[in-house]
């Protein structure tokens, strides 16, 4: 009876983490970015008003949402979704455990569009930070520099990339590709350990609305691989004691065997 109880308890304990993990993995995370200047909007997700009076430069999220397919419609603020046409619309697939950016932004040339980007939310090695850069601005190809060395080169509108670097504060510059003199943006960014810091370049350089907005995917940190806390062997127990005992065992055993052999002669 007691054994049965233990067995049931053990089975229950085994089930609990599994369900927790499943509940966790049926969701994804969504970041919404407004990168179209001079346009206040309402954002509808699957026909439901989700963000009201969303303004240029606003960022919402990351927000946890059940995995699935989402229809995203963006209306001028205060518009009637039953009567008016959306300014932008599109769909986004959110996979379980994934992180996605949905961005209303300008293409090169100034035409607005709705972009969907999957963000890298894989575990980051302990001590490192991840930086993601996305070019969503009305501007030609750019280089992105961290502490004056190029991290991403020749990034065009709609493109982006991510890199893992030691967690620290970095001087980040965005310049026209191949032309370090034309700095469009410069700031010191804190790249926190275990976090994917995402920078979105939005707006129009020519129109003077160019800016960089950020979002952060946290909780991605991995664990250190070990803790090296001794080199002298002063506290060692098993090794020397084991060797000594084994040595004594050999001596006693052979001594005993010899004595036996002598007795039987």
């Amino acid at each position, binding site marked *: 009876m007691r054994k049965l109880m233990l067995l049931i308890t053990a089975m229950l*304990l085994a089930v609990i*983490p599994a369900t*927790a993990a499943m509940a*966790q993995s049926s969701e994804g*995370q969504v970041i919404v970015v407004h990168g179209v200047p001079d346009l206040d909007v309402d954002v509808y997700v699957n026909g*439901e008003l*989700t*963000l009201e009076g*969303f*303004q240029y*430069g606003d*960022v*919402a*999220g*990351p*927000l*946890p*949402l059940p995995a699935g397919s989402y229809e995203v419609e963006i209306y001028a603020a205060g518009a009637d979704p039953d009567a008016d046409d959306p300014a932008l619309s599109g769909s986004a697939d959110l996979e379980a455990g994934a992180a996605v950016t949905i961005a209303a932004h300008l293409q090169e040339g100034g035409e607005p569009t709705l972009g969907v980007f999957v963000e890298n939310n894989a575990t980051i090695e*302990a*001590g490192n930070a991840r930086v993601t850069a996305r070019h969503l601005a009305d501007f030609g190809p750019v280089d992105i520099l961290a502490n004056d060395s190029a991290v991403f080169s020749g990034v065009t509108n709609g493109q982006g990339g991510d890199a893992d670097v030691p*967690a620290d*504060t970095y001087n980040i510059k965005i310049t026209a590709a191949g032309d370090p003199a034309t700095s469009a943006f410069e*700031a*010191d960014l*804190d790249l926190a*350990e275990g976090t994917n810091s995402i920078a979105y370049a939005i707006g129009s350089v020519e129109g003077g609305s160019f800016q960089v907005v*950020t*979002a952060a995917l*946290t*909780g991605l*940190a991995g*664990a*250190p691989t*070990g*803790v*090296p*806390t*001794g*080199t*002298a*062997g*002063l*506290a*060692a*127990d*098993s090794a020397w*004691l*084991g060797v000594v*005992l084994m040595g004594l065992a*050999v001596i*006693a*055993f*052979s*001594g*005993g*065997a*010899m*004595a*036996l052999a002598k*007795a039987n002669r």
Partner: protein
Amino acid sequence: MKRPSPHAPLLLGLLGLALGIGLAIASVAEFTKTENPTLGDVERVEQSLSTPSPSSIVRSPSTTNSEPVEAPPRPLWQVNEGPSLEAPEDPRRTPTVLNIEAIGVAAEIRPHGVDRATGQMDVPDNVVEVGWYEYGPAPGEPGSAVLAAHVDLMGQGRGVFFDLHRLEPGDLIVVQFDDGSEATFSVQAKATYLKADLPTEAIFSRSGPPVLTLVTCGGGFDSSISRYDSNVIVYAWPQADRQRDPGEVRST
């Protein structure tokens, strides 16, 4: 002089064999001791630390009702404050001094990160200081706050955690912070793990109930590489809520 019994060599031989076998068993047991290390509530503590990530604990209310039929209207999403590009002020209090009366420890604590060359936790270069894993929680915050110190160092002798393995459940650990405050923890469990089997995910967990985790080296020592084969781990809980169920997740 009395002549020895003719049975004496036989008895001596049997005794020798028995002693040999006994010592052999003892030495094997000594070698394998570190593989069966649990004492106290180790499994309970580690299980409490290896469940959901913060993103699934701190969830917005809008996601808890996926069937909106009876549910109140879903609140609108909030626009993020900021966006801030500069480093935020770290609001945490930082641990500065560790006191463990039971084993005579009174040591300074300094923040340490990761050794890039090895991927292991960076530890003090001396035997007198204690390293706090600065990327994890501070003592008393949700998750496992790690304080690591040497058991010994070549050329420097015994370390501040030389007697860590002597701690017993109920022993008190006091941590002082940079803001003058202090927190008391009570030892719950200790364990010795072969380094290859170290449960790093639980030991460095950043979610779950607050656990203070003290780490040093121990077990067998390989003098050819100056390395212990095991880590000695002591888990302690905040003294005030010692009775708390470790399975309970504190959401912030």
